[in-house]
C-alpha cells in the first residue's frame, strides 16, 4: 500500500546506545530499573533461505515500510523495534538479519549468541524454501540454547501469503502438526507487502519469551568485560586519531 509513496528516507538505527546488547546480560533479559518501568531487551533472529523476505519483514515491522526492490542487507547488524507491551513494560527487540550474504548457512556463533527467540521464514510460493525450514530449525537448535538448556522460542512465518492466497488455507492442520513436530511455538501466514500478521507473529514470540523469562534470571553472569563500554577515555583514542 505504501509502494507508491513519494521518495522517503528511512533512518535505521542499527545500534543506538541503548539498542546494543550492552544492557543485556549473559543470554538474559535486561531489566533496567528506571522509574517504575520494566524494560526488556531481546535479541531475535530472522532466519530463512535467500529471498524469502526476511529483510522486507524486518523493514515492514520496524519502519512500517515495504519495498519490492530487493536489496541485500549491508552494514546493518540489526534493526531495533520498541514495543510498549503494557503500561509497566517496554520491550526492545533487536531483529538480527543474517547479513544478507551469509547465505550459505555458515553463520558465525556471534550471530546466534544470546538470542532469545527467532523467526524462521519461508516463501509460500517456493516449496523449496519450506523444505529448508526443518534444516534451519535443526541448525538453530544445534547452535543455540537458552542458558537453562532449553531451545529458544521460534515462530514460523509463511511469507508472501498475498501472492498465494489459498496455498496454506487447506494445510492449516498440517502446519499445526508440523510446528508441533519441529518445536515451533506457532506459525503465521504473513505478508510484508500487505502488512499481514507481522505484528501478531511478533507478539506471539514475545509472549513466549516473556513466559520463559523468570527461570532465566538466575543465569545472569557477573563480571563480564565489554571493552567498548568500560573504556571511557582510553588509549584507543590515539589509534583513532590517526584514522
Amino acid at each position, binding site marked *: 500500500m505504501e509502494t507508491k509513496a513519494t*521518495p522517503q*528516507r528511512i533512518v535505521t538505527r542499527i545500534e543506538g546506545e541503548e539498542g546494543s546488547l550492552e544492557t543485556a546480560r549473559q543470554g538474559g533479559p535486561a531489566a533496567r530499573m528506571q522509574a517504575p518501568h520494566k524494560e526488556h531487551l531481546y535479541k531475535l533472529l530472522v532466519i530463512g533461505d535467500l529471498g524469502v523476505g526476511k529483510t522486507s519483514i524486518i523493514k515492514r515491522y520496524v519502519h512500517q515500510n515495504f519495498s519490492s526492490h530487493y536489496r541485500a542487507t*549491508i552494514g546493518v547488524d540489526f534493526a531495533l523495534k520498541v514495543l510498549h507491551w503494557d503500561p509497566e513494560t517496554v520491550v526492545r527487540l533487536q531483529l538480527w538479519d543474517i547479513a544478507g*550474504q551469509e547465505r550459505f548457512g555458515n553463520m558465525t556463533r556471534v550471530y546466534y549468541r544470546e538470542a532469545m527467540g527467532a523467526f524462521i521464514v519461508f516463501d509460500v510460493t517456493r516449496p523449496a524454501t519450506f523444505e529448508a525450514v526443518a534444516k534451519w530449525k535443526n541448525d538453530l537448535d544445534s547452535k543455540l540454547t537458552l542458558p537453562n538448556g532449553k531451545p529458544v522460542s521460534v515462530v514460523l512465518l509463511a511469507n508472501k501469503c498475498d501472492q498465494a492466497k489459498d496455498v496454506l488455507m487447506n494445510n492449516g492442520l498440517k502446519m499445526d502438526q508440523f510446528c508441533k513436530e519441529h518445536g515451533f511455538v506457532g506459525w503465521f501466514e504473513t505478508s510484508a507487502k500487505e502488512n499481514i500478521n507481522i505484528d501478531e507473529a511478533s507478539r506471539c514470540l514475545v509472549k513466549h519469551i516473556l513466559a520463559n523469562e523468570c527461570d532465566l534470571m538466575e543465569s545472569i553472569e557477573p563480571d563480564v568485560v565489554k571493552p567498548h563500554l568500560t573504556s571511557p577515555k582510553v588509549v*584507543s583514542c590515539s589509534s583513532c586519531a590517526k584514522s
Partner: protein
Amino acid sequence: MADNLPSEFDVIVIGTGLPESIIAAACSRSGQRVLHVDSRNYYGGNWASFSFSGLLSWIKEYQENGDTTNESSRWQEQVLENEEAIGLSKKDKTIQHVEVFCYASQDLHEDVEEAGALQKNHASVTSANSTEAADSACLPTEDESLSIVSCEMSAEQTPSSDPESAPEVNDAEATGEKGDHCDDKTSEEETSTNVPTAADTIEQPKKNRITYSQIIKEGRRFNIDLVSKLLYSRGLLIDLLIKSNVSRYAEFKNITRILAFREGRVEQVPCSRADVFNSKQLSMVEKRMLMKFLTFCMEYEEHPDEYKGYEEIAFSEYLKTQKLTPNLQYFVLHSIAMTSETTTTTLDGLKATKNFLHCLGRYGNTPFLFPLYGQGELPQCFCRMCAVFGGIYCLRHSVQCLVVDKESRKCKAIIDQFGQRIMSTHFLVEDSYLSENMCSHVQYRQISRAVLITDRSVLKTDSDQQISILTVPAEEPGTSAVRVIELCSSTMTCMKGTYLVHLTCTSSKTARDDLEPVVQKLFTPFTEMEIEKEEVEKPRILWALYFNMRDSSDIDRNCYKDLPSNVYVCSGPDCALGNDNAVKQAETLFQQIYPNEDFCPPPPNPEDIILDGDSSQPGASESIAIPEANSETPEESANLENPQAPSE
C-alpha cells in the same frame, strides 16, 4: 543449498584464522567485494574452539590423516594457454603427534551422546557413526542432565563398548562415542538412579565425580581452544576491537590470578599495588622492595643510569643486582615479565615488565582478558563484521588452484572444488593451504600444546571461579618455559565442576615429551581406586590431549617459491601469549593491498545510516549514506553509557 558464487571479487581470502578474518573485515569494511572461504567445516582454522564432540572429530581427522576431498578434474580445462595453475594443498600438515588420554571413569554400558548438540558440521566430515547419532537428535531435557551431574555415579567399565568409533585412546579401552545410538532417553534415567554396585564405589567420598559420559553429555559446555592466548588489556587486539567496534560482538572475562610454581607449590603472585599490600606471603620489607622496583619499571626509560651497562645482559642477572629477595626476583622474572628464557636481556625484561604494569587495572586486577566462549570467537567476530558489510562466506569450500598469468606472473583467479573459476584482484592465503612444493625451503618451528580437563583448580580459594595464568620455568637448558592457563566454567569453555587447562610451550620434542613433566608436577591422573589419601591433593586429570602445532609466524614471504606478487600469505598462530602478531600481520598486509585505505575504521553511527526505502531510484542500489563528518566515535558513545554497566 546455495546458488553459484559470483564469478568476480576484489579480494579472495582463503582460510578463516584470526589474521585472515581481520583482513577480510577490513577489506569488506572499506567497500571491497570479499569472498572468504575455508576448506574446513568450522571457522578459525588453527584458531578455532570446539565443543567436546567437535574436538573429538578434529582429533579423529588428524589421527586418521587420510581423508581426501572429492575434487572435480574439470579444472584443467579452465586453465588457458597463457596461464598456469598453482595447486593448493589438500591436506593440512600443521598438526602432529596427537595423543589422547582418558582417565575419567567410563561407565559406558549406556550409549552416550552430546545433549542437544547436533554438531552436524563436524560429524558430517568425520565419522558416519556420529552423524547418525547426531541426526537422531534426541534432546534430553536439561533437568535430566542436571540430575546426573549432581549425583554420584558408579563406574563400571564395559568391555562391550566399541573402540572403533572412538578416537584412538591410549591407555583406556573405551570412550564415549559409540557407533550405534539408541534414541531412548531411558538410558540416562537408569544412569541417574545409580545403584552402587561396583566395589570401588563404596569408599567414594561425598563428592561429585565427573565421568566421561558426563563430559560427553555436557559436551556443548566446552569450547576448547586450539591455541591458548590471552588479550593484553592494552594490546593491539583490544585496541582494534574497540576501534572497529567489532568489540560489540565479544565479551570478556578478566584473568583473576597470576600464579607461580615454586618449590613444588602453587602460589599467587601479587602484582597490583593492592595485591602487594594485601599479600600475606611477603614481608613488610619485601613489599617495599617490590613496590619500589615496580614503580621504577613503570618509568625505566627515564632512568637509564639505573640499568646502564646491563642492557644486553640477562634480565635475571640484572634482577640479582637490585634490592630484591630471591622470592621477588622469581616473581618478577617468571610471572610479571614472563621472560623465563635465559636469553632475555635486561632491556627486554624491563620492557615486558612495563607492558605488564601498563595493562594492569584497565579492566581488572591483572593485565589480561579472556574471550567468553573461547579464543575461537575472535576470528568469527571479524567474519561477522565482514559479512555485515557484504562479504560472502563459504565453509567446506576448498580451492584447487590459483590461476597465474604466465606473462605478468600475477594471479588472476582461483578454481574451486566444483571447478568454478572465480576472478579476483588480490588473494590472501593462509600458509597451510600452500602446496608442499611451494614451501620446500621453509623451516618451521613447532608449538607444543596440551589440553586437560581437571576436577579442581591448581590453587584452591574461596571462589571456584578463578581464571589463572601460571608460568613454569624451564628445567633444563634448551627447553622452554611452559605457560599454563586454567579456565573455570564461567568463561563458557567447560562444564560446571571442571576446569580446562591449556599448556603451551615452544617445542623441543613432541608435545607430550615437552609438557608431560609439567603436567605431572601440577596434576595427578584420575583413578577409580583412589581413596581420600591426602586432603590437599593435586587436581585430577579427567581427560588429556597433546598435540604439536606448526608455528609459521616468522616466515618471510621470499621463502615461498613462485609466489605471485598479488598473493599474500597469512601465518598460523604463534606461540606468544598475546595476539599482537596477528593484528600486525593483518594491518601490514591490508596496507600493502590498499595503501590509501583506513584500516578497520569504526562503522558509521546508526543514526547516520540511511536506508532508502524507495523503489523509484533503482540506480541507488547501495543507498547507504555514510556521512563521515558527524559520525560519533564509539568511544564517545561509550562515554554516554553507564560506566557501571558490567556490574549492572
